[in-house]
């Protein structure tokens, strides 16, 4: 009944034949470094793991089932709860899917506002990802610095849409609130403040020799494995695969901005090791700052929401829309039956789900302490795994 119970004989038999000197250890479900409620069953000799079996599902809320019982517009707040660190991207992807399905046009200003909100959210999410990764490994100070910076972003989004975590900012056909007159200046001021802080962060932790030696060459993922296991986003790019939906399948207005795709190059070790995944995220924050500056300058005037009927009934059909969320491709496969105002089926493809699935194959022969580094570097968020 309870998943992590060890007396389940079948479970043990599937795991492996017991070997002299081996033991089974539970890590989680309540463990400070597992980024949410998830459980690992470790087969270990005490120091080196022979296998780590992830048990997920503790946060499974059946969001896909809820979608079938909620009207199209009413599902938007649920999307916030898929990935609480990057709710804006989940909002945008769902709005894009329904707009594509029903054929609504989004005003240009709304597209820009979505980009601004998403890039702010990307920085906020990477701040937590890199900060908590450093903290998991033992460096507490950077996390405190990052949380201070994230607080400014929270204040900006609070002024933008009234929320600090679950934004519910996108509407089908636009966004909920216009950018307040003074906020663009505030964001620019914050960017002027934040970019030097990244340099400070680099001095503090990214180029810290102890930190580098702790992470370099730990659990390198080859490009072939990363693609095969369906890794997406920074995890995929850290392995050297040049793929970013913002550039390769342009959505919204991303084709108008000039930014670089950051790839893992084996900065201090092998390509695709834990340190690469860390550095890729730090560098992506700089790229997001670039996009933000361009978007704030180019922000056109106009409507923020197009006329959309109160009850949305898309024609029969299906669509897949995906965005480059901070944790990689976040996509919605939405099926409409043409008569109902509720989706017939919504499938949500998230980055953490596939990132979680690679851990078992990575874990063989790795120290238990490095498992923490793997989870941290893959930036797994438990509600996104379970949905």
């Amino acid at each position, binding site marked *: *009944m309870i998943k992590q119970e060890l007396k389940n004989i079948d479970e043990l038999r599937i795991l492996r034949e017991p070997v002299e000197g081996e033991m089974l250890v539970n890590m989680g479900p309540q463990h400070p470094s597992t980024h949410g409620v998830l459980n690992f069953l470790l087969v270990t000799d005490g120091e080196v793991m022979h296998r780590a079996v992830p048990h997920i*599902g503790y946060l499974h809320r059946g969001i896909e089932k809820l979608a079938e019982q909620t009207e199209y517009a009413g599902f938007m707040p649920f999307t916030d709860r898929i990935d609480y660190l990057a709710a804006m991207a989940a909002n945008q992807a769902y709005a894009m899917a329904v707009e594509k399905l029903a054929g609504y046009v989004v005003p240009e200003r709304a597209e820009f506002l979505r980009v601004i909100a998403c890039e702010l959210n990307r920085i906020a999410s990477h701040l937590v990802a890199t900060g908590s990764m450093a903290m998991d490994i033992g460096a507490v100070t950077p996390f405190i610095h990052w949380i201070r910076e994230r607080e400014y972003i929270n204040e900006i989004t609070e002024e933008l849409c009234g929320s600090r975590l679950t934004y519910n900012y996108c509407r089908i056909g636009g966004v909920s609130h216009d950018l307040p007159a003074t906020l663009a200046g505030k964001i620019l001021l914050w960017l002027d403040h934040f970019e030097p802080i990244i340099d400070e962060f680099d001095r503090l932790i990214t180029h810290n020799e102890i930190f580098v030696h702790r992470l370099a060459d730990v659990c390198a993922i080859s490009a*072939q*494995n990363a693609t*095969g296991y369906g890794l997406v986003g920074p995890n995929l790019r850290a392995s050297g695969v*040049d793929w970013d939906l913002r550039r390769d399948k342009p959505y919204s207005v991303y084709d108008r901005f000039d930014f670089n795709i950051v790839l893992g190059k084996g900065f201090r070790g092998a390509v695709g090791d834990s340190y690469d995944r860390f550095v890729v995220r730090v560098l992506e924050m700089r790229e997001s700052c670039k996009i933000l500056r361009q978007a704030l300058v180019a922000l056109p005037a106009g409507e923020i929401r197009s006329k959309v009927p109160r009850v949305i009934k898309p024609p029969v059909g299906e669509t*897949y829309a995906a965005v480059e969320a901070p944790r990689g491709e976040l996509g919605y496969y939405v099926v409409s039956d043409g008569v109902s105002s509720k989706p017939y*089926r919504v*499938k949500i493809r998230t980055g953490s789900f596939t990132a979680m699935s690679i851990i078992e194959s990575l874990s063989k022969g790795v120290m238990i302490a490095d498992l923490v580094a793997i989870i941290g570097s893959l930036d797994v968020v438990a509600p996104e795994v379970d949905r």
Partner: protein
Amino acid sequence: MNFEDIVKTLKAEFGETVKEAAPGTVVADPGEIEKIALFCRDNPLLDFKALIALSGVDHPGRIEIVLHLASYGKKHFLVIKTALDRNKPEISTLENVWKTANWHERECAELLGVLFKGHSDPRKLLLPDDWLGYPLRKDYVPPTEYHGISHSRHNPVEKKRGAPPS
């Protein structure tokens, strides 16, 4: 490579077992799915090295398995659909083609009751091990309790109808 060329390449290899459906989508024969998947992955022109998502949809009378494929090198996409008998949905596993299919299939199996033949790890993934029924099927009736824990609870603040005002 545009969609027409992808369909041509697939038809040249598999003939009528692959049919063109909506733009960007082909419908494949469920029996041939493993061969088609392998061909899509290994053909240098198609190069679908990534399985983006494997979804199941419960349509009246059939369960559809939908594969979203992407090629990172060639920058093109393909959707492969295949329909299974709703009373006995069975399909061969694709975990030997794309490793990520392992978890996608486990999720699809427990939520829609699809049997993936040859799957190496058929345990439940998201639901508790003793969960009954397949929640994403349209005729699923949600349970009212789980091990004695009720799913609904009366509101202690709301007054009962007809109770005198206090």
